[in-house]
């Protein structure tokens, strides 16, 4: 995460300067012969360099301001918010936005992590270091503890992602959190595409897609009754590429496994799985060393790596822009269980 420096500058985003907001890979080649300026574009600066008429914000700036607005609304209207923080890129971006929303003050809520017990050690290290740097309180819900006490049973396939729901709801209830920020995005999945930015959950943490409040203008209705809580998704409108471009622009630090590195892997279910304590190859599965990176960082038992030489954030932006497979399709075994996997988990109170 970048450090904030105080400096005086004209709003750089008001200037019609080249930005990284182009999405070349999903653009339409035949359009490029058209002139760039539209007859309506507000632009033009005077001789002293001051803007005579402020231009529009870039797409990334608009998304950033929308997210900060939502974060501030939730903090202003709820008693006890918390932010789900796994060390994954979306939650890291969420935390970065929160630091910007309350600068120069501290982020005024704790972070919550549901630890599957199968996390990548370097991600846990990153989590702890980030929490320390920002002076935050970390609340951990442990899947392992629930398995040890018999409250949860290990699944036959060893995947622990679906087991996170119970410890998550338990942590929400025990800490009396009434709003929980998540880094969910609507482009991830067709269930998420229909979820509100403020999503009401009942006493069982369940999402009811048929009974959602209409979300109008930028007025968010977070009213809830005792026992209910709200999940807030301030980066709902961001795409995977937006997230990466923002990470690049803001110079945000991520766990190293998002970038290309050498790792011992084996092939399973059409994905490269890392060799680790909770992720052991079967006899017929051959372990090889490959240059890989992760597009999502979750439970080691169900998150796959992709072959990639993208070692820097710039490389990753280019790779994501050109990628032809969605991030969940490429790397999440749990979403392959069935076509409605995410929908079912959300109804049960999942993130």
């Amino acid at each position: 995460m970048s450090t904030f420096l105080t400096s005086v500058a004209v709003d750089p985003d008001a200037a019609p300067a080249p930005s990284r907001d182009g999405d070349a890979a999903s653009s339409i080649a035949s359009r490029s012969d058209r002139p760039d300026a539209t007859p309506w574009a507000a632009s033009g600066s005077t001789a002293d360099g001051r803007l005579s008429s402020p231009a529009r914000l870039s797409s990334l700036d608009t998304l950033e301001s929308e997210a900060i607005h939502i974060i501030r609304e939730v903090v202003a209207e709820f008693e006890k918010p918390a932010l789900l923080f796994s060390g994954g890129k979306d939650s890291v971006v969420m935390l970065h936005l929160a630091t910007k929303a309350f600068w120069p003050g501290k982020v005024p809520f704790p972070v919550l992590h549901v630890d599957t017990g199968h996390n990548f050690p370097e991600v846990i290290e990153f989590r702890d270091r980030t929490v320390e740097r920002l002076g935050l309180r970390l609340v951990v819900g442990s899947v392992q503890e629930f398995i040890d006490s018999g409250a949860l049973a290990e699944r036959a396939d060893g995947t622990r992602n679906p087991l996170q729901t119970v410890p998550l709801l338990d942590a929400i209830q025990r800490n009396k959190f009434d709003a929980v920020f998540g880094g969910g995005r609507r482009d991830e999945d067709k269930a998420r595409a229909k979820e509100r930015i403020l999503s009401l959950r009942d006493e069982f943490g369940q999402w009811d897609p048929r009974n959602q409040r209409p979300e109008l203008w930028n007025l968010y209705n977070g009213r809830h009754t005792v026992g209910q809580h709200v999940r807030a998704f301030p980066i709902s409108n961001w795409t995977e590429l937006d997230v990466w471009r923002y990470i690049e622009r803001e110079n945000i630090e991520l766990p190293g496994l998002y970038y290309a590195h050498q790792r011992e892997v084996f092939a399973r279910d059409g994905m490269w799985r890392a060799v680790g304590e909770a992720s052991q190859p079967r006899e017929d599965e051959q372990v090889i060393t490959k240059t890989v990176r992760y597009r999502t960082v979750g439970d080691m038992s169900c998150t796959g790596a992709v072959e990639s030489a993208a070692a820097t954030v710039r490389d990753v932006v280019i790779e994501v822009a050109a990628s032809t497979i969605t991030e969940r399709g490429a790397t999440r075994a749990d979403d392959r269980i069935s076509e409605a996997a995410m929908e079912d988990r959300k109804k049960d109170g999942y993130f």
Partner: protein
Amino acid sequence: MSTTATVPESAAASLGLSSASLFRFATAGSVDDGKSTLVGRLLHDSKAILSDQLDAVARTSADRGFGGSGAAAPGGTQRIDLALLTDGLRAEREQGITIDVAYRYFATDRRSFILADCPGHVQYTKNTVTGASTADAVVVLIDARKGVLEQTRRHLSVLQLLRVAHVVVAVNKIDLVDFSEDVFRAIEADVQQVGRELGLGRQESSAVGVADLFVIPVSALDGDNVVDRSDRTPWYQGPALLEVLETLPAADELESHLESFRFPVQLVIRPQGALAPDAVAGGLDVENYRDYRAYAGQITEGSVKVGDKVNVLTPGQAPRTTTVTGIDFAGRELTEAVAPRSVALRLADEFDVARGDTIAAAGPAGGKIPESTADLYAALCWLSPKPLREGAKVLVKHGTRTVQALVRNVTGKLDLANFQLEPTTTLELNDIGHAQLRLAAPLPLENYLRHRRTGAFLVIDPQDGNTLAAGLVKDHPGDHEDERYSI
């Protein structure tokens, strides 16, 4: 095995070159007018559909024996049903319905788009109002074989009420009328006629009127005039749908010319020594920030510069005038900021300013200062199965303030087919009507015609907290307003 694609040189080279802005649009249509196919076509032709999604849709198309002339699956001859690309939740597939507004994302090298895909048949008013409330443009579909229907008039009426900046009417299935110019021109004339009746496209100074009304012949199934202009409609000289969406000014651009700065205060940032450790570690001058106080919010309209005179509006108090001394954005000091940026403002005077107050432009450029009032006259789009009755107690959420309110009168219900007001005392789901409310505390209300953000509010059920209605502030009766075209 999933491996990432090799990056074409051209993609890498042009990544840093374009300066894309965000454009939000919604789609509205009747049953079977091909809206899902059109949305699928836009996503497909703008390459927003990735190969694993396309594979899944191709498999389903084959299973169902789809034989249309849709796009070809990658590496195969199987035609795919583009409508499946927007297939939603399992509950919807099981029941063959679309439950709710779905949001989709795609980008060209000129713009990033957020598309609110609004189902047409169930609760169309609720869905259209929801999608249109944040939209810069709405695409309304018409089946070329059917022409302008009752529902088309209703859709256009709702868009006029909400003052959507641009309306694009896509006359779809033009292939099924043999690309007939006569059919298209007749429908185009009908649309223009409805537009004139509703006041669509009417320009009015200082009002956020609907700026444009486009009519385009398209075939969503075959792609004619969707992304590229078609040579099968040589009689049509206008732009393709995506060209229009790429070049229309967004609502923010239109409203930035109003020069009426509005800033509802969300919260006060006052760390009182509890500074962010990472900011301090990054070299923040702790002494300088000991007494830091700034007002956080999002600029809803216009722009602000350091040195601008502004009014602090606290309901129930006279406006207090002061000067903006700083515009902070997470460690950067801006000299100027424009809607919809989220910032923190520092003011010259140490007023007591709190959440719920509004900071607004002062002086001649800012125009009229919003006056606080406890009498609210409004158009209500009723979105709840629980009907509105006179005498009901509700909550009104406006900007960053929520107050109690009493529904004094329901003064009429709009017949969307002819835009006439009919007498009624109740509003039901999907009704749009006029009502008068008495607020427990005054609010700085502004006419929605002139201020889309500060003229909008929610009506909330105090019991279960559900959103009951979308509210649009009207002028008080007596203040002259053209009743026919106004909300």
